[in-house]
């Protein structure tokens, strides 16, 4: 009953028209090793979602793997902008569906609840509603008439989330900020966790502020020490600033980037 697989098995799970979503946020707990495995594969034209995108989406954009990106943010937090995201958008090469944080959480939540929509005020009166790829529709509350936005579900075919420890049954712990990851694993059809460690048993008297992911949400686990790449994975390792700066300087050079992901 072990749910353990490796990166090549993970890549084989991804179909041509699938929506693949990544967990973590900005430069925290990013599934960088998993994204690099996808970047090295023959896959292309992917539909990708990332609540707060960071290096994982940037390297996939740089390797020309992404056709369309759903996001509320893409960047390197206080370390600046995401170089390939920026370049691709400014060349007009990347199709995007832009959410706010609240709208993207609402879309994941609708999927988690298997509802055809959820109402929201987030986004009303902003330009998010008017973009050419907007998925939101204004409607009247059936009880009060108030104007609200209808947010359709965002249900990834595959969610990939990096965690601190997992067991072979798929239970896992996240010790740092969980961002929208609980919603994401509940929204997705399939869930792969990459873990710093696969342990025999998750401690039952665990730290009171950790987030527990139940095996009922998880299909596969991959042991991936250092799988967060240069992002921070509390308490295992801090972000690696020299590598971040190096990436920002060079990552729009495709030869450099190919080399980089070969080692990630």
């Amino acid at each position, binding site marked *: 009953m072990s749910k353990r697989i490796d990166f090549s098995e993970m890549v084989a799970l991804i179909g041509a028209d699938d929506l693949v979503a990544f967990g973590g946020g900005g430069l*925290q707990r990013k599934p960088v090793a998993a994204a690099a495995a996808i970047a090295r594969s023959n896959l292309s034209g992917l539909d990708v979602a990332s609540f*707060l995108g960071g290096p994982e989406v940037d390297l996939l954009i740089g390797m020309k793997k992404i056709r369309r990106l759903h*996001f*509320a*943010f*893409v*960047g390197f*937090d*206080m*370390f600046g*902008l995401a170089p390939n*995201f*920026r370049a691709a*958008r*400014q*060349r*007009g090469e990347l199709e995007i569906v*832009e*959410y*706010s*944080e*609240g*709208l993207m*959480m609402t879309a994941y*939540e609708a999927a988690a609840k298997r509802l055809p929509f959820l109402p929201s*005020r*987030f*986004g*009303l*009166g*902003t*330009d*998010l509603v008017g*973009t*050419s790829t907007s998925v939101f529709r204004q409607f009247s509350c059936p009880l*009060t*008439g*108030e*104007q609200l936005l209808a947010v359709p579900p965002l249900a990834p075919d595959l969610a990939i989330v990096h965690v601190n420890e997992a067991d072979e049954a798929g239970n896992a712990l996240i*010790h*740092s*900020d*969980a*961002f*929208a990851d*609980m*919603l994401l694993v509940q929204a997705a059809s399939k869930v792969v966790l990459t873990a710093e460690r696969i342990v025999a048993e998750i401690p039952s008297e665990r730290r*009171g*502020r*950790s*987030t527990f992911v139940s095996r009922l949400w998880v299909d596969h686990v991959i042991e991936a020490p250092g799988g967060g790449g240069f992002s*921070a994975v*509390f*308490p295992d390792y*801090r*972000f690696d*600033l*020299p590598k971040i*700066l190096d990436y920002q300087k060079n990552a729009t050079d495709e030869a450099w980037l190919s080399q980089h992901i070969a080692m990630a």
Partner: protein
Amino acid sequence: MTDTAYTLEELLIARMSKEYRGGRLGVGATILSDLSARLAKTLYVPDLFLTTSSRAAADPEVHAKALSEEWTLDATAKMSLDWEQMFRMIAQHKLQIWIGAVQLDRTGGSNISVIGDWQRPRAQLIGARGIPDDLWGCERLNYHIRTHSPKSFVEKVDFICGFGRSPLESSGSAHPARPGVVISDLGVFDYGGPEGTMQVVSLHPGVSFATVQERTGFDLPDPGPDVAVTAAPTSEELRVIREVIDPEGLRRLESTEGGPKLMLELWERELAGQAVA
């Protein structure tokens, strides 16, 4: 009473710290706004609920600011604040935030997403992130802008992430944030001008209205010769900033000194300190 030797960032942090009220979130999405919340909690609003860059370490005591926040805040954080719960706090106007905007306009519209055309932007920034949500989480949305220029203070933002005057019919049960206080390297502003447009509240010491108008992309009402001067930080505020909340000087990252070199220097010092501790 006030130290005459202080930096612009210290002035900004001190002024920004005056906008918090107790029993609510004080969220710091940028270094200056984070430091302003820590200063407020230290001196003025002891029951401010801090959430810094990690929601896994929420409601901590006041610590010195670090680049790797989780490692330092873990010791005193009261709880892990999951994002769904945080968004319910937001839905209930429990949020107080200074947003670092890239463009602001005459009536309080804000933009951090794209410059130019959204389809193929001249400059792709970070996306709308939480601004459309914060509109429903705050009584007032406050902004800070690092460099006051006609490119940052514009007649109309290129992409509305946050609106100023509400474009919505007021049929609903909830009301969006009003545009609040804006602070730049030149002065403090609000939207109490004619028809809810931007006006000067105070000018930073040594700044003239003529300079502000020259660097603003729309007309501001002239505040006249009696315009207030932004209060200098008190010696107590400077002590707290320098000794308690930012002894390593991370605030310099938001000054003209900022950049990869200073960041690397701070990061190496933080790692070394950690190795010793």
